[in-house]
């Protein structure tokens, strides 16, 4: 069974068209939507297409200019980001700024198609040319690309894949690195992993893992590093001395100033147009905006929502899209109000998500109702279970015995990288809840303090929030399947965990993650969403951020993928 042709074509298209109507106003987004449809068709037919290949001509159109001209080679891109990368080690990092950089250097066996801008991206070949799963869905066999070299000159082969797998998952291997935690979700069901020959790698699970390809294709956290380099510099020093197979090579990192990459002229695929990419962390919003205006940076991530329109008016090119991110709050079931489903639902009705997305984010986010992100296969843009309805909220509160409301607390952060407007949203929710009589006290602390205080014992609060996500259905398992949660977890809110599982929800999630048929799987995940978000109302989702980017008009070829990283090989400068 060629799994990567079995992607959900029809669903993708339908979803895309629906979203296309939504985005129809934007002349910037629409052409890229159509472009993505074109790319889609090509991928289904041609197994050996290199990623991004068929979209090379398409990407320049995505800038909204009919006469964009031929891409030119050369030039340096300076990219300003609002957060600094922690470590440039794909197996250990936990920051979006770092994903964006490590994906320039490191490649996984497969990846989500970065040319897709809406709907569920296809899985496309990368270091694996092809793959197949056995009929029972237990064993995956990957045929690896030949003739690929790491940046340090080492040949890429199945031993390299093995070494990287062992680095994350095999405790008695010489490659094992405790901090390389990313393997925990994807490799937890592995029973046998083999490398029968230099170009074949297999992994066998003890249960079918339908989204295995998707999980190893996400964010490239399974970026394959040169085993020679790992041995030479040691596990801990790989972050400072990266060596992958990707289109860009690491040149240098000057902490806090810049990280520099250059084109990998020996790259196996389509070589980048750009000579160099320089990443600059600029933490202060205002300074980042001025740096774009003065030309000190060419491309800016994380613009403050308020300035986006004025930058567009000044002539900067704007790009945003559907991201895997979801900002949500988790209800504390041990709180005296949080334990009542009517109160939880009342709160969900009382929050005006449309107004948050429109007024606070200036439409740089869309309202969210579930944990499935717009990039997940089961995401349904028409599913909006909690329309803003303060009357319904008051009714439910009266039913629960609190017609005059009550006083409780929300835990959150004032601001955090990857969770834009966190504090402002909390304030907005406070105002929304005040309208239905709930007096919400905000306890906002900076991120790491926050992580230390969301203890399970915090029954004085009704909810705590966070923001992250993956463009997969499996993300819901990580959030809401009992096997991934324990009563001992700091953030456990008493909804479901190993000690007290929510059996009904588990059934949907387990069956959904094991179903090898996409339609069945998606149906099960939608039921899980309905159960967790509406029936039990254990979470309240607020927004999906569209991760807006602004760039100088001469920068061409930027395609806003559904992921958090972008295909930089297609970027070129028209000067």
């Amino acid at each position, binding site marked *: 069974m060629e799994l990567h042709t079995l992607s959900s074509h029809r669903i993708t298209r339908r979803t895309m068209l629906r979203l296309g109507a939504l985005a129809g106003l934007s002349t910037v987004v629409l052409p890229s939507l159509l472009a993505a449809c074109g790319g889609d068709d090509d991928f289904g037919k041609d197994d050996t297409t290199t990623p991004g290949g068929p979209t090379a001509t398409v990407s320049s159109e995505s800038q909204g200019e009919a006469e964009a001209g031929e891409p030119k080679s050369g030039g340096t891109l300076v990219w300003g980001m609002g957060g600094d990368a922690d470590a440039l080690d794909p197996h250990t990092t*936990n920051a979006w700024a770092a994903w964006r950089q490590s994906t320039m250097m490191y490649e996984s066996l497969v990846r989500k198609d970065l040319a897709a801008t809406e709907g569920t991206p296809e899985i496309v070949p990368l270091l694996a040319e092809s793959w197949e799963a056995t009929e029972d869905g237990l064993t995956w066999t990957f045929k690896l690309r030949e003739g690929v070299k790491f940046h340090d000159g080492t040949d890429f082969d199945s031993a390299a894949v093995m070494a990287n797998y062992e680095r994350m998952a095999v405790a008695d291997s010489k490659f094992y690195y405790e901090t390389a935690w990313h393997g925990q979700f994807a490799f937890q069901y592995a029973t046998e992993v083999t490398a029968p020959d230099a170009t074949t790698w297999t992994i066998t699970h003890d249960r079918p893992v339908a989204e295995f390809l998707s999980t190893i294709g996400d964010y490239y956290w399974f970026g394959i590093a040169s085993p020679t380099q790992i041995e030479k510099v040691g596990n801990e020093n790989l972050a400072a001395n990266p060596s992958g197979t990707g289109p860009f090579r690491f040149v240098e990192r000057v902490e806090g100033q810049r990280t520099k990459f250059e084109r990998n002229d020996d790259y196996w695929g389509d070589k980048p147009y750009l000579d160099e990419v320089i990443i600059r962390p*600029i933490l202060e919003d205002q*300074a980042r905006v001025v740096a774009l205006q003065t030309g000190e940076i060419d491309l800016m991530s994380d613009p403050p929502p308020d300035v986006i329109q004025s930058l567009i008016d000044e002539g900067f090119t704007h790009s945003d899209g559907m991201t895997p991110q979801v900002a949500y709050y988790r209800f504390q079931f041990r709180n005296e109000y949080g334990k009542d489903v009517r109160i939880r639902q009342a709160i969900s009705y009382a929050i005006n998500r449309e107004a948050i997305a429109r007024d606070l984010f200036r439409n740089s986010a869309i309202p969210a109702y579930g944990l499935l992100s717009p990039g997940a296969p089961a995401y349904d843009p028409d599913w909006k279970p909690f329309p803003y309805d303060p009357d319904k909220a008051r009714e439910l509160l009266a039913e629960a015995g609190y017609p005059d409301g009550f006083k409780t607390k929300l835990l959150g952060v004032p601001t955090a990288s990857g969770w834009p407007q966190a504090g402002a949203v909390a304030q907005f929710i406070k105002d929304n809840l005040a309208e239905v009589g709930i007096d919400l006290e905000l306890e906002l602390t900076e991120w790491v303090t926050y992580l230390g205080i969301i203890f399970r014992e915090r029954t004085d609060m009704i909810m705590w929030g966070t923001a992250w996500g993956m463009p997969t259905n499996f993300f819901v398992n990580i959030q809401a399947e009992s096997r991934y949660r324990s009563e001992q977890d700091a953030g456990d809110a008493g909804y479901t965990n190993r000690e007290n599982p929510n059996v009904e929800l588990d059934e949907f999630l387990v069956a959904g993650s094991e179903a090898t048929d996409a339609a069945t799987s998606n149906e099960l995940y939608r039921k899980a969403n309905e159960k967790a978000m509406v029936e039990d109302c254990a979470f309240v989702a607020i927004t999906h951020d569209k991760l807006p980017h602004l760039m100088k008009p001469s920068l061409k070829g930027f395609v806003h993928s559904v992921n958090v990283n972008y295909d930089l090989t297609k970027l070129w400068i028209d000067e």
Partner: protein
Amino acid sequence: MGTGHPDGKVVRRMGRYIIRRLIATVAVLFGVSILIFTIVHLTPGDAARAQLPSNAPEEQIQKIRRAMGLDKPMPIQYVYWLRNAVQGDFGRSYQHRISAFGIVKDRFPNTVILAGSSLVVAVIIGLTVGVIAGTRPNSRTDRTATILGIIGASLPSFWLAIMLLIIFSLKLGWFPAVGMYDVRGDGGLVDLAKHLVLPTIATAAVPAAVIARQVRSSILEIMNLDFVRTARAKGLAEHIVVLRHALRNAMPTFITIVALQAGYLLGGSLITEVVFSWPGMGQQLYTSIGARDVPVIMTITVLIALVFTSLNLIADVLQGVIDPRIRLM
């Protein structure tokens, strides 16, 4: 200096004084390290948890915690830290997974450049304004200087920094907005100087105002003393009275205040460094505190404490050289 004839006794006394102060410096560093270590550990938050997504399973966090040595009681962790630190090993940054000392070593010179240029600007402005205002008490110049001083000392530095950015970088386009060098170029002194101007002004505003105020009040005090009257009575020109006699007597206070300001500048440029993306210790401290990156926080704070106490020691010794009255104490 011409005054006084230091004999052997004075030099010996001076030597003993310096040794005493050095011992005190070590004690201060020890105290600072315990204090900061305790504060960082008592602040809620969890460096191990910060390595993982917000609701990672507890077992995984425990694993990381063990790998980072955070499962041990705090005093034991401190003893480990101290043992390694006295051997020159300041540990590995939790956040960046590279040597904490390496990070700080790279950033220290950048902060010294910014703090140094700010100090020079603050001293020139502070001294000039202070002397002018102090010699013309209650004149219009004095009142203007006082008002400007109050404004300078009370402007929030992030606000001033952002204003400078918007006016001189965005509107006028005179200076670059962020960083130390143009990342596209190869750097160089001219490039550095251009990047240095705005952060220097933003950083120098407060110390300039503080120095001006101090200089003004000590000049004012000295101008009323007998020896100044004597000098004037001798018929010396006013500028000689001010520069040779009054200013020289104001020097000890001036040196102390400048040394203090220099120490504060090392930590005080934090806000400016963050706003202008100046890759110094302040910016690093800001992100490291956010990530509870204990090895880096410790290295930076101990280094700042070391520089601060050293500057004070140097100031005291200099005072002794300039002012024989202090030497004999």
